[in-house]
């Protein structure tokens, strides 16, 4: 067993469309303790130059997890999920996620490398609207502890 290096570069089919709601953005902002009215009040957001309520910078993880899970849960890839921890996370934004966006994710296995006894696996997830506008690219690196040398 162990992670199958032949899966490097593999791209998974897009996820089902996800419709971003103002309620979900407000819930997320509350959960991270951020009381910024831009995350709750459409008029305040528009007064600040936004088309609608924007989401906080880490909100795309709520959407991208469905894409990266397609890769990480692929039985052929061979990730031992019980041994996995989140190692690194990065977002490149074309623009904020906005309430009203309907987006899909397309994930690619971007990197597989050894780090001591562990294996680092990076998925690259493109979040785009169903109209084809790029919103954000999320890079998630998970660490499979003790996964090297299998």
């Amino acid at each position: 067993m162990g992670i199958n290096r032949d899966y490097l570069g593999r791209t998974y089919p897009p996820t089902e469309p996800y419709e971003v709601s103002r309620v979900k953005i407000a819930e997320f902002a509350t959960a991270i303790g951020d009381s910024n009215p831009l995350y709750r009040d459409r008029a305040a957001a528009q007064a600040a130059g936004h088309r609608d309520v924007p989401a906080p910078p880490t909100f795309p993880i709520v959407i991208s997890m469905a894409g990266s899970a397609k890769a990480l849960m692929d039985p052929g890839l061979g990730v031992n999920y019980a041994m996995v921890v989140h190692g690194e996370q990065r977002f490149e934004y074309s623009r904020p996620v906005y309430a009203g966006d309907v987006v899909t994710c397309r994930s690619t296995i971007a990197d597989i490398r050894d780090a001591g006894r562990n294996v680092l696996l990076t998925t690259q997830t493109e979040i785009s609207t169903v109209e084809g506008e790029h919103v954000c690219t999320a890079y998630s690196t998970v660490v499979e502890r003790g996964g090297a040398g299998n």
Partner: protein
Amino acid sequence: MYAPRIPRSWSAAGPGTERGASEMTAQVKYDDVEAGTELEPRTYPVQRIDLVKYCGASGDFNVIHWNERIAKSVGLPDVIAHGMFTMAEAGRYVTDWIGDPGAVLDFGVRFSAPVVVPDDDIGATIEVGGKVEEKLDDNRVVLALTARSGDAKVLSRTRAVVKLA
């Protein structure tokens, strides 16, 4: 030395107390910062209830974020915060500084240690700090951020590229 304009809310007592954030759009001007400009550090408290809320909001219900028995059974000292919760606090630090969530162009972290959250009335704290590491073209700057909890450096290699006014 340059003292960055700190939004009024930065002196607030803690989370949930900030007001006037909608007035903060494009508070920080590119011409007002230099490489090396320090940002005022901030402390964010974390209690178990915050992790429960984050489970629901994010959809990440991993038991190590709410069940002490299972967290300890897999070798953790106690329940730990989601790495993405910690990253969210660092993100909030950045958006509070610039005043505009739309001005964040790139944001990346490495999770270097867990934030351990005991089941008491105090919980844990995440202390975030930062400085302008580099000025780029087109009013963009690179922020280098730090995040600690107790003695542990919980985020490393944390960088945000933001566009200033």
